[in-house]
């Protein structure tokens, strides 16, 4: 009897062979597309390497050069500026939108599609479209501002306004996190709200005592993803400025400068050092977010 039971348990748990077999595509992918490049990238960062010539080991020189590279610091400043404003704004508006889109209102399918639209427009077109909406001479935005008597700035042409413009444009594309918040909202059991209503809770209390606390795991997920995405900003500023980061490098973002070093100047070693610094920055930020999460992320026990 006991042996039979043990046999059954073993049978039910399944074998290591099956598990490994099922996971094998990813285990191979992990080595080929992550582990190998990661290690290679560390090595390259210590070399002087153009594609045409094999790398020569130069120790920490790439890192030293970066330290004295004005444009490197400028691109870090731009990227952090963007992240500091964009990430909190995208969480605030993302959650608010998802809550609005989770209501039981007629025609919700259409509203949801509208919010997702900008995510579906190719980024190149998005960039060109906004370049034009924000044009100081004949753009729609200044036209509308003009109606209320404000004379708008030259947005993308001015060093002060170029980054805020980009933040505005990027907020337009928060469809993907909104979808994930929506999924999180639909995971919250309906009876929590019903119980609260019986107790006479108003909208405010329900939002701050049920919805937001239970949504924190999803907010956490989107926060981590948002930070990573903000630091990887590339296509929008690249196409907006045709790779130049104009005006006055105010739109030269970290990854754009990395791309230029790698694929324009073929300084593969220098670019690899930049990639590693980016990795470290993101790792440190992620670690801070993880460490703080114990204080504010609530898991719903199931």
């Amino acid at each position, binding site marked *: 009897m006991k042996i039979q039971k043990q046999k059954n348990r073993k049978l039910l748990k*399944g074998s290591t062979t099956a598990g490994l077999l*099922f*996971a094998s*595509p990813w285990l191979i992918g992990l080595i080929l597309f992550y582990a190998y490049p990661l290690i*290679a990238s560390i090595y390259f960062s210590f070399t002087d390497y153009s594609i045409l010539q094999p790398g020569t080991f130069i120790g920490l020189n790439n890192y030293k050069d970066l330290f004295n590279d004005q444009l490197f610091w400028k691109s870090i400043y731009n990227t952090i500026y963007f992240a500091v404003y964009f990430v909190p704004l995208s969480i605030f508006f993302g959650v608010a939108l998802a809550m*609005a889109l989770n209501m039981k209102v007629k025609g919700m399918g259409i509203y949801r599609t509208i919010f997702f639209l900008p995510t579906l427009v190719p980024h190149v077109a998005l960039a*060109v479209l906004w370049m034009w909406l924000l044009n100081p001479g004949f753009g729609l935005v200044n036209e509308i501002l003009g109606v209320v008597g404000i004379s708008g700035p030259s947005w993308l042409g001015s060093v002060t306004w170029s980054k805020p413009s980009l933040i505005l444009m990027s907020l337009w594309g928060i469809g993907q996190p909104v979808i994930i918040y*929506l*999924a999180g909202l639909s995971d919250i059991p309906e009876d929590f709200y019903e119980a609260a209503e019986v107790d006479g809770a108003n909208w405010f209390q329900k939002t701050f005592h049920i919805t937001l606390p239970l949504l924190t795991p999803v907010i956490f997920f989107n926060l981590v993803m948002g930070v990573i995405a903000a*630091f990887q900003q590339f296509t929008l500023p690249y196409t907006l400025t045709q790779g130049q980061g104009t005006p006055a490098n105010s739109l030269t973002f970290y990854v754009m400068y990395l791309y230029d070093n790698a694929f324009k100047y073929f300084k593969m070693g220098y670019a690899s050092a930049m990639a590693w610094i980016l990795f470290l920055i993101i790792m440190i930020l992620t670690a801070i977010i993880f460490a703080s999460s114990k204080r504010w992320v609530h898991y719903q026990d199931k």
Partner: protein
Amino acid sequence: MEPKIKKRLQVIAAQACLIVASAFFLIPFLWMLSTSLKDITQVFTFPPEWIPRPFNWENYVEATEFIPFFTYLKNTVLITVFSTIGVVVSCPLVAYSFAKLEWRGRNSMFIITIAVMMIPAQVTMIPLFLLFNKIGWVGTSLPLIVPAFFGVPFSIFLLRQFFRGLPDTLRDAAKIDGASEFRIYWQIMLPLAKPAVLAVGLFQFMASWTDFMGPLIYLTNDLQYTLSLGLQQFQSQKGTEWGLMMAVSTMMTLPIIILFFFLQKTFIQGITFSGIK
């Protein structure tokens, strides 16, 4: 009577908020549509006009001749379809293994998978470029397709969450009846995971369809370009072909909008975060 009125007012307030917010998201899109139907003299009219006069449908024809549209469309479709197939085939297998099968090292492998999501693509980009260059894949679409068959961490994560929500008893019953692991996966678990697989497939489809940096790095011959890359050709030293560019953008966007509109319910259902720990 009173709570009923209150409820009604709430719905009206909600509708109003949604309509105002929708405008913000819709305006640039409508502007794209409107521009795609304007001729060049009307594009620069000031103040801007919403309705093209007359509707200049020729932009759509002209745009397909200005760039090798159908070649680019074919390239885009091929890359998108194959990379989506890759993700849809590989990720559920791996996710199922992480969620339901027991093997040594499984949990640490899963933690590594989550950690890998945090590696910026730019870190792996250079060594991968050099690797693909060495084996002669730069200048082909293979670097944009093949990796998808080896799994994408974000998709594996989403699918694992979904599989974990499926009851174990289903699997146990089939096991006692003598079904193999693969049969259980293929005939019981995978069909149940359809919404999640669809969600992951759609995410990949959209990512590949609008990808810019990947094709920019790997495609060297302009006959291999994708539409996203091809759009750049409407911008030149002489200026931008606004109407034509917006016509192509509209043609690129419409199919996915329709896809999303019809699939959104399943799509949202397929993403589950219950039990993230």
